[in-house]
């Protein structure tokens, strides 16, 4: 397409690209606290992107979504995670199962897959942000990959939450967001989920003296 895109679309695409970039950054990040910060940054970008969409299309409930995203994903969850890290005295570095370059290569392959899968759908979409659906799917998959390769509990949870971010991006990009009641429900679930996870971290640390999930490999078939 050679025709110049409107500014809003360009902005949205830019933010989407930033989200993807941040997803890669999280995949590569070895330390816990920067990882959480990256996550917060991703939430912020998401919020900005949603704001742009809301502003451009005039969908009122998207402002609500944006606010919710900001509050939950950029502020509340990172704060909780920070507190947890401090309280649990997690060691700073994060070990991966596979080394970072390999992970990145796999990530690139995933992006290609995601773009191709999303292509037929985004062509059907009429929203201004339709091009970002592929990016949303890619960031979901990258978050998934991150969950697979991380061996510590907290990064795994961050991956889980990043996945939620990708889903949110998908929702805004494809359909201008879900109905409000659903959004609220999802947000509530995520929040409760993180709280329960927090409880879990303490229980796990009490039992294993560590948050390394490689301790959690005893239940298996022999």
């Amino acid at each position: 397409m050679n025709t110049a895109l409107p500014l809003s679309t360009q902005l949205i695409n830019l933010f989407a690209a930033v989200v993807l970039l941040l997803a890669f950054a999280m995949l590569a990040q070895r330390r816990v606290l920067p990882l959480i910060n990256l996550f917060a940054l991703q939430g912020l970008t998401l919020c900005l992107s949603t704001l742009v969409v809301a502003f451009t299309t005039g969908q009122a409930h998207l402002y609500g979504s944006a606010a919710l995203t900001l509050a939950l994903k950029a502020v509340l969850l990172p704060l909780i995670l920070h507190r947890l890290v401090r309280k649990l005295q997690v060691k700073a570095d994060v070990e991966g199962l596979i080394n970072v370059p390999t992970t990145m290569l796999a990530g690139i392959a995933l992006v290609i897959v995601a773009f191709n899968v999303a292509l037929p759908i985004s062509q059907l979409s009429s929203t201004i942000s339709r091009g970002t659906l592929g990016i949303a799917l890619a960031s979901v998959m990258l978050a998934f990959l991150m969950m697979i390769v991380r061996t510590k509990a907290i990064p795994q949870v961050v991956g889980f939450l990043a996945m939620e971010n990708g889903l949110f991006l998908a929702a805004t990009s494809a359909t201008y967001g879900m109905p409000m009641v659903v959004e609220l429900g999802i947000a509530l679930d995520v929040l409760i989920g993180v709280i329960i996870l927090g409880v879990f971290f303490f229980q796990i640390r009490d039992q294993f003296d560590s948050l390394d999930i490689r301790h959690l490999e005893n239940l298996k078939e022999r």
Partner: protein
Amino acid sequence: MPALLPIDVLLIAACAWLAIGLAGLAAPRNLHFISKILFPLGAAVGVLAGLTSLRFLGSGAETAVLAIGLPDLPFHLRLDNLAAVFVLLLGFAAAGISVFAAGYFRKGEGAAPGLMCLQYHFFLASMLLVLLADDAYAFMVAWEGMALSSFFLVTTDHRHAEIRRAGYLYLLIAHIGAIAILLSFGVMTAGSGDYSFAGMRAQALSPFWASAAFLLALAGFGAKAGLLPVHVWLPEAHPAAPSPVSAMMSGVMLKTAIYGLLRVSFDLLGEPLWWWGVVAMSVGLATAVFGVLYSTVQSDMKRLLAYSSIENIGLLAVALGLTLIFHAYRMEALAALSMTALLYHCLAHAGFKSLLFLCTGSVLHATKERSLGKLGGLIHRMPWVAWLALAGVIASAGLPPLSGFVSEWLLLQSFLFSPGLPHPWLNMVVPVAAAVVALVAALAGFAMVKFYGIIFLGQMREEALKDAHDAGPWERAGLLWLAGLTLALGVLPTAVISVIDAATRQLLGTGLADKVREHGWWLLAPISPDRASYAPLVFLAVIAAAVLLGRQLVHRLYHGRLRRSPAWDCGYVFQGPRAQDTAEGFSQPIRRIFEPMFRMERHFPTIRDEKPYYSVKVEDHFWHWLYLPLARAAEWVSRLIIRLQGGRIAIYLLYSFLTLIILLLVARP
């Protein structure tokens, strides 16, 4: 009030059995009530069922539909002549066995008597329902109910690990067989969705699917009957079960499998193909030879009988195969002959095998011993059981003038016609199969001599046997009833054939009865007296006359003096019980001649042994050739598959991830 139809009476009988069983559960510990009231009542119901089917035989089919079952498939019941023959068998055998059981169960043995009573009568009722069922669902429910109740009966004495193992093996094979039967029914519906037997009859299957249905049925029913190679449960389950249950299983339950095969191959499938008969016959021959060989080398009396049951089932399958071959070539008169042999053998085997199993029950009760190596000389202590067992032994060895011989005679007669088959291979090979049947019959004699001689004759191999007591009145009554049936089946073949002929006519369109009745009630001449004839009564009379006359003459002309002294034995000094052949010793010639057929572990004494001993253990090749490899293969696969559950969460996530990606890439609408 309209008169009760036979099918109604039979339904009432089934309900009565269930009610009797439940009544037993109401007072589970009251042995007297259960054994002296409920079991005889059950026997009476059995007689009722037998008489009803006797009255019914020869009339047209009756049907009934019950209000239970699947929503679109209520239980269809149907009483026709084929079913009636087997109901007759069930009712009369059950009568004898129940009466015996009334005297058999004691306090403190295995499960609570009430529970036994429930399981036993549930077993009877489900067998009756198997015979009456007229749709796939009702049949399967009754069939599996039969398996289940007999499984619980087999594991009555579940404290022993080997009994539990036997029960497990039994139920497993029964269940897999049941699935095969279910699939066979599935094929026979041919996609019409009509699971009633009437619906299956209406289908015209292509030869491929008909063959599939037949083979599935052969496998499924064969698993229940104990055909090779799915026979392995049988020699385990029969010894494990209490004797009346073994008698019921061997005498009646195995026949329900034969019934099922007949129902499928002659009634539901329509026209058979000739090679089905060849398959059935080959399997049957292999089974018969295998069964009889293993029965001769057993040293546990109930295992011996169990293998002998396998042999008889093999013979039944041979008869089935022969009938199928004749029927496929539309030689209906000959098919009727071998079909009669088949049905006759079902009845005969039900009589004599139940009788023998019950006798082992009495022996077991009197001696607490199942191993042949520890029995002997019981004819002195248990004359009733011993003499009645002799009838069973002679019938089981297929000797005149008792029941087993009639069916074997009929079978051999039908074999004699096989050269007339229009197929160039069959007419050569099938007659030779008759030789195998003869070998089986002769070997059965060997096994039976061993069984009887070692248990009842000779010197007592253990001191404790001196305290053995004869069977009680209930047990005697049961044994007498079955021995009477065996005798009646032996000497009144014409009458019996007239009764069962209705079933033959139903399946083949022609029967033997008219021809048989032509020559008087005492002479059995299925084709013509010139061709072949057998008159067991004359036979018996001549022998009896010779015996009596001989005795009288000798006593009259000479004298009847008699005195006792120690045995001579060529002047051999040591004449203790251990000088006799052991059970293993008796079968040594068989083991030696048929060595490749057995898997033997032998230990020979050497000169350096401090305590020299000889031992031999005979095992089934099939375990090592078929079952263990199968079990190992399953274990190998499961060892492979459980790696899926390696405990590492990252790997689990990876599965999920890969599943998603693969589906996204591959799955297209």
